[in-house]
């Protein structure tokens, strides 16, 4: 099986280590990974602002870059979800539909497709898991706290395989961090307040690291952490799962 590696635009530019960790982790697990170098973006920032009609250029480019792979894997729940829900093309409808069914976020690819049962990873720290809303309620990576339904969590399942890692429990399991795309600047006060509250929850419960499937959430939290000179650090889940002694 071949996997096309989908690296979101901002991960590519600002968090290349998470992208490298994703690539290495997949390779370690025996996957044949290719990174199409001409990829750019999934088009989500425009669509979420009401400009879905402007994202056709991004859609076409995505289809061109990724239609030839068995699977497409990306270390970003929100970008993967966006493609899953919104990738359309009048000229390549079949290809678009195929892509929507074979694109996976990294965590769910590991649990559902590769069915990973153990990892050679070690991360001896207290870690708080931040459920990105797109990952949680969009991709259903874990059970949602609002529902009366059986608990499960794909990211927790993987983190359980990491030596030395202690998962802390939060007061509010899955409250949104407040990034929300352009929301983070158009409603700056609310966005930051939401981020601060998440950080307070993690740090009062002892987190040394906050991890997630979404670097957009983590970038927003990191901005606040740095501004407040906090000792708490962010780390993308790929980097934890790929880490070793």
């Amino acid at each position, binding site marked *: 099986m071949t996997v096309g590696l989908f690296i979101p635009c901002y991960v590519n*530019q600002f968090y290349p280590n998470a992208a490298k960790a994703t690539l290495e982790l997949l390779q370690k697990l025996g996957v044949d990974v290719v990174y199409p170098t001409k990829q750019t973006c999934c088009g989500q*920032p425009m669509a979420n602002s009401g400009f879905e009609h402007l994202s056709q250029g*991004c859609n076409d480019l995505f289809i061109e870059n990724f239609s030839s792979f068995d699977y497409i894997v990306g270390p970003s729940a929100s970008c993967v979800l966006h493609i899953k829900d919104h990738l359309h093309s009048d000229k390549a409808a079949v290809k678009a539909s195929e892509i929507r069914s074979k694109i996976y976020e990294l965590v769910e690819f590991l649990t559902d497709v590769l069915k990973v049962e153990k990892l050679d990873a070690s991360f001896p720290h207290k870690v708080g898991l931040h459920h990105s809303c797109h990952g949680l309620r969009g991709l259903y990576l874990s059970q949602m706290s609002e529902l009366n339904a059986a608990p499960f969590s794909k990211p927790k399942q993987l983190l359980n395989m990491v030596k030395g890692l202690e998962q802390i429990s939060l007061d509010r399991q899955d409250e949104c961090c407040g990034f929300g795309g352009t929301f983070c600047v158009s409603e700056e006060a609310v966005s930051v307040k939401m981020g601060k*509250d998440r950080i307070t929850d993690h740090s009062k419960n002892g987190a040394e690291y906050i991890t997630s499937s979404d670097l957009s959430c983590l970038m927003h939290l990191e901005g606040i952490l740095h501004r407040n000179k906090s000792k708490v650090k962010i780390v993308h889940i790929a980097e934890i799962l790929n880490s070793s002694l």
Partner: protein
Amino acid sequence: MKGTLNKDHAELAEAFIKDEERVDWHDGALWFIRAKRDLASKKISEWETLREAASQIKTNVLSNLHQYLLQFEENLKKNGIIVHWADNAEEHNEIVYSILKAKEITQMVKSKSMLTEECHLNEYLEERGIEVVNSDLGEYIQQIDNEPPSHIVLPCIHKRKEEIGELFHEHLGTEKGLSDPTLLARVARKHLRNIFLTRRAALTGVNFAVAETGEYVVCTNEGNADMGAHLSEVQIASMGLEKIIPQKKHLAVFLRLLARSATGQPITIYSSHYKKPRKGQEMHLILVDAGRTRQLAREDFRGSLKCIKCGSCMNTCPVYRKSGGLSYHNTISGPIGAILAPNLDMRKHADLPYASTLCGSCSNVCPVKINIHEQLYKWRQVIVKEGYAANTKALSMKAMAWTLSSPGSFTTAGKAGRWVMHNIPFVMNNKLNPWYKQRDMPEGPKESFSQWYVKNEVDNKKNNSK
């Protein structure tokens, strides 16, 4: 009237958030209610099935509304209730006024009705010499403070007890500094009891209107709707068209969901079924459109009319909890307000669908499974198409679309962005950049992932072929 004239949600929210201690308190109070809702919902193993049934019943109602309205009207008349129809707020208010005028009534007591709040009924009547007293304690407090309710179930959830004490001192003559909730409630009890006993007219809202039997149900914890109604000569009920439910037995589904979703209680203290007037009493019911048929026509948004006004979406919404209901400048606030309001006035409320991160928690708690977060996304597309998006947004979006659809310009933009951040950070790190107000910018790494990959592609190929 204290108002929010011309300010959008972001501005009003920012003002609310400045008092961080208050925001934390407001946020904590509402989260606590969300938590109570969770506990109550988990006690019913069939909770999710109930939600699905309620959703299907309401969907059926919307698809059959014409027939149900006719059936409801016929049964109301059989029960001796006088039926009125109002196309808009003005007409509704006129009808209430004419009912009161016919009996020479100049004072009315009112229990909770968001519809009458939407119609600005109280102001209309006051202008015509009719005094209206809101009898729900929270709404009474908001009324004496000349402020609209901030939450549809908990009207003054944003007020501290000291502020309420101050209002009571001013309007009811209580001791200055008295803020004990029980003592304040007792004073209100006495004052409002006298109102109930002396008012000849009472107006209530409608939680559920049963087409099959021509009766309607009013749910309260305080008993204020009943105190007003059973002492009145004239009882008026105002309802939106969408409050209909088809059959009596469906009340079981909705009453099991309503209070648990709203406050975590298994049922409101009073679920009163009004069917026929008391001997010597006149009962009226006003069916109101006020934009509902327009929303009914909207394929993507008609689901918002399933709403049973429980408020659980507000309690779970982190944006609502941290910005307060009054920052939504609409009678119905929060997530449900944001998908109802643009239908009423798209220009005024164009900002509301953007007052959200689309986290989806609201849709999960909604007892009738309205896909609120999806409707918020869809409203954004409509608002942009209709031309109500801020101009600056439109231009920057077009620029973004151009950059992101071309690999060449994307790479250049990315390189340029990172170079700027690395070498001349003050360009980004300044007060004009809203991100930077309270957050540091991410560090610009020396090379992007693509650059690293291309450089190391030969090594990667070697690894893959192992």
